């Protein structure tokens, strides 16, 4: 089993519903977030291109955050989901520094927090909160090893990219182009 996500940049409008749905679902304190929206524009008026995408932890196969964690708080869960056991976390922040995606933040309660792919929902057969609310249905989640999963189907016939592939982290979020 390998959980992954595909996000269609052709459909995302950057509404940030994924952000607020995550905050509400996971009690992320106001002022912090586990996912966010990036918008980048290239070209010169009037020949322009704007890409909008929702970003979060890439649940990398080769995760620098798990490697550098001194206490083992950062670890792999089922399906390769990277999570932080809060009571084991000493808040040293090494993982925050090691992440090429800036996907982690220091929670005011003293531990490091990040996207869990909504593991608590996934184990119940639900989709992550961000995926389940997205009005444009631009996010696909599932098991890459299951050829019929939403994510496998989504990437099968589309070009896609990952973020910062040069970091060698083997990220598991695919941006459909």
């Amino acid at each position, binding site marked *: 089993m390998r959980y992954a996500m595909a996000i269609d940049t052709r459909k995302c409008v950057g509404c940030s*519903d994924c952000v607020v749905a995550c*905050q509400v679902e*996971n009690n992320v304190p106001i002022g912090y977030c586990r996912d966010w929206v990036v918008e980048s524009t290239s070209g010169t008026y009037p020949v322009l291109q*704007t890409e909008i995408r929702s970003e979060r932890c890439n649940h990398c196969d080769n995760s620098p955050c798990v490697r550098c964690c001194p206490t083992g708080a950062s670890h792999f869960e089922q399906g390769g989901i990277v999570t932080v056991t809060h009571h084991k976390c000493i808040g040293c922040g090494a993982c925050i520094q090691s992440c090429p995606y800036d996907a982690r933040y220091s929670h005011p309660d003293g531990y490091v927090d990040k996207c869990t792919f909504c593991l608590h929902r996934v*184990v119940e057969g639900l989709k992550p909160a961000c995926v389940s609310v997205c009005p444009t249905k631009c996010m696909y989640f599932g098991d890459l090893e299951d050829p019929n999963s939403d994510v496998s189907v989504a990437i099968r016939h589309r070009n896609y990219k990952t973020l910062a592939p040069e970091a060698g982290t083997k990220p598991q979020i695919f941006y459909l182009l």
Partner: protein
Amino acid sequence: MKTRRDFIKISALGLGGVAAVAGMSKMMTGQKVVDEFLKLSQEGKSFLKRYPTYCEVCFWKCAGWTYVDDAGKIVKIIGNDDDPHCNGRLCPRGTGGIGMYYDEDRLKKPLIRVEGSEGQTFKEASWDEALDYVAKKMKEIAQKHGPESIALFNHGSPGHHFGHLLKAFGSSNIVAPSYAQCRGPREVGFEMTFGVGVGAPEPTDIRDTRCLVLIGSHIGENMHNGQVQEMSDAIDRGATIITVDPRFSTAASKSKFWLPIKPATDMALLLAWMHVLIYENLYDRDYISKYADGFDELKEHVRPFTPEWAYGITTLSPDLIRQTAREMAAASPSVIIHPGRHVTWYGDDSQRSRAIAILNALLGSWGRRGGFYFKRAQNVPEYPTEEYPKPAWSWKDTHNGKYPLARLSVANLLIDATIPSPDNTHEIYGWIVAGTNLPLTMPDKQKLKKAFEALELLVVVDTMPMEITGYADVVLPESTYLERYDDLRNETHREAFVALRAPAVEPMYESKPAWWIARELGIKLGLGRYFPWKDYSEVLDWQLKQIGSSLEEMMEIGVKKFPNPAPLYIEDGHEPTFPTPTGKIELYSHELEHYGFDPLPVYTAHPEPPEGFYRLIYGRAPMHTFSRTANNPNLVDLMKENALWVNPRVASLWNLKNGQYVKLKNQDGVETRFATKVRITERIRWDSVYIVHGFGHHEKGLTRAYGRGASDSELITNVQIDPLMGGTGMRGNFVTFVIDNIKTEVES
């Protein structure tokens, strides 16, 4: 009569009980709750209970479920899968609607304006005292000027309850700015062509379209949920999107063609498109010959409007105009020239909307799959009460024979009727304002101020200390939608259905549902016979039983669909009727001719910005609605202020830096109260600047919204009135930058 109405800042009251949220914890915080949830769910227990609702953050009113934990706290709001408006997916505002309930700045107690030793101030009052005061004043005004002289300004769900009260009282002066400040002109444009308006939600069959044309309509930034979802479906299906906008909007970035039109010249483009469709024989000949009237006149009319003619006006190349017209024709009839929603731009907006309607007719898209479907709705009977008294006059009489095509009341004209003037044949002396923040909604603040000064009574019903409350004689705190019953939602769609809104929790503070406020006030006015129920659930249950459901059933399902065999499209057997004078689609409008208006749409040149000024364009962000969400803690977290879009060439000329704060000053010397952050971007033309509407609040009681961003509506002092229906054209304002000595009111 008052000579002056001071703006009272609710935050400055210093009254006990208003200041703090003592004891209110803001949502559940911390990981503990998640852990607890995980533990409990692993044990197979669910501790969340859900209640049906439909959203009140915007007019789309998506149906959903409010989840409440066993401590009685609202934890989240999730879309209802059966709701055709949202298909189980709320937008960021709907998901963040929870913040409307938890906002500690909410109105908490009734307030009455009093004259004190240090000027006017509010005192807290009991509901009895506040409503007694309102009833006494309403009776006095009715005695002096007649009950018709009290008007209701409303938006959203509270409107129906107070509308019922006002009609029982004897006034039909009920108005929503959503008509003359927003979508009214498009209704008139389509009524004059197809005999029926567009209505809301728009019956645009975006899901199945092959070509979607957006003209200044920025779906994706306007988060009209169903439309956004369907645009996404259309992208999946490979539909062509054509976006006409001076700004490279989100929709433009999803489009095959972006037409960066020179603002205020849309009519020229529309006429040129008609020219191409007709003179290249690309229009739907069968459809036009069967259903339309006036084709020959139209053909002759658009003869000179070649793409080359339009090029000199719109700055769009003739090739691009031809190519896009051909693209539409290739998709016909599965093509939508979207009517837009906020269309009050230049004062000839009904005529521009008519041009859009005519284009749709030429493409045969009205009543066709992938064009416009014939909508269905479930009729819900009104709860039987005594017949309303007949008012001696209504809003239409205040127009003095002008604006003959206004089908709904016109907010700006009722404001005019409130300002003492020898021209007024009918006068308004009292306002009830429910759910609309007029100071940020209406253009021309000077007029609004004059009206405030003249009013003998201003009652404001709201959940938040919006700017309008500062001018009120009485402020009545309404419960949020999560705490109250409201009317069944039975809007039109492809399917007929009803949705229920039921309270998930008891109202916080001393707030009350609108139905309760209207009923109590009605009883005090001696109109109790119009409110023969104790609780609104009785009304809902009665209504639901008339249509084969019940409150009990709806509490379980939230949304109920009703089978309706009427076909959605002409090709499926729907024989269309066009309730126009000729019974056909009127390409040439005899009705407009009768009233002395252009029977065929005509391009008029609009004023252009003077040297050093830029056209002010305003719009929406997907995480906010009007000015009503700017204090919502969850939504502020997503976007806390607006930014001013400036083309790099303009920025370089003015030496503006990204992130720098500037104020804006318009052609009449009016300056924004607060500064806004510059965003230098290629995504806008050099002759325009853009900000998102709804920011720049000046009521300090809105602690998160106060002083954040600039208010576009402050700058809208030049208003071009649509002669057909009285709408306020607001895009004819030009601004320049005020750069020196800018202080931001709040830390950014």
